[in-house]
């Protein structure tokens, strides 16, 4: 799974509304609304439609942010959640 390429839905397939602590994400394809907390919205934004491997995603996040606990395991766990929610595709 760690060699998989992770993709976010097309940008027009999501309706994103920041709500203080949460970011509400409406996924048009499924009709499901998700409430995300950090770092999930940031992961979605960096991931984009193009897709990234776990390591590439970790590098990109580290470019943009100071990662306080930037382990592959933690990122993989966040990605698994997003995959389970249907917001990220792993292939």
């Amino acid at each position: 799974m760690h060699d998989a390429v992770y993709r976010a839905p097309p940008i027009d397939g999501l309706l994103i509304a920041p709500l203080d602590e949460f970011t509400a994400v409406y996924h048009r394809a499924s009709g499901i609304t998700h409430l995300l907390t950090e770092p999930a919205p940031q992961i979605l934004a960096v991931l984009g439609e193009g897709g990234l491997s776990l390591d590439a995603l970790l590098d990109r996040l580290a470019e943009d942010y100071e990662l306080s606990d930037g382990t592959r395991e933690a990122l993989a766990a966040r990605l698994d959640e997003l995959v389970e929610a249907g917001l990220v595709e792993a292939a």
Partner: protein
Amino acid sequence: MIPEHREDGVPTRRRVLALGAVTAGAVVSIRPALAQTAGSVLNCEIPVPDPGRAGSYIDANGRVVPARTKGAFPSSPRPFKGEEVKRSMATGRSLPGTDSERSRAYVNYIRRLQRGQGGFTCFASLQMPRA
């Protein structure tokens, strides 16, 4: 990189970002349960009136009135299925086991249901197009 996201509430460069513990959890999904269970919506039940006021009568306008009020109707001996109510509202036919006047009183009662009353969620779900 998707610039729109960055400006739309997602923090900018060099902010501290915690990826979190493996067990943390950063996603809560709100599923449209009613929309996904159209079958069970039609099988949900609406008591007339709700159990807390069982034994009261229903007047022609759908108000709950004291038992044996003249011109009002006794409460229904059984709750109605969502499907029965939906059909009656759509076609104007009487609810099962009722004549037209009693059915109209019951339907008026159901239309006046509010949040927190027995059967309200069932009635509200009948209004959804997919139900």
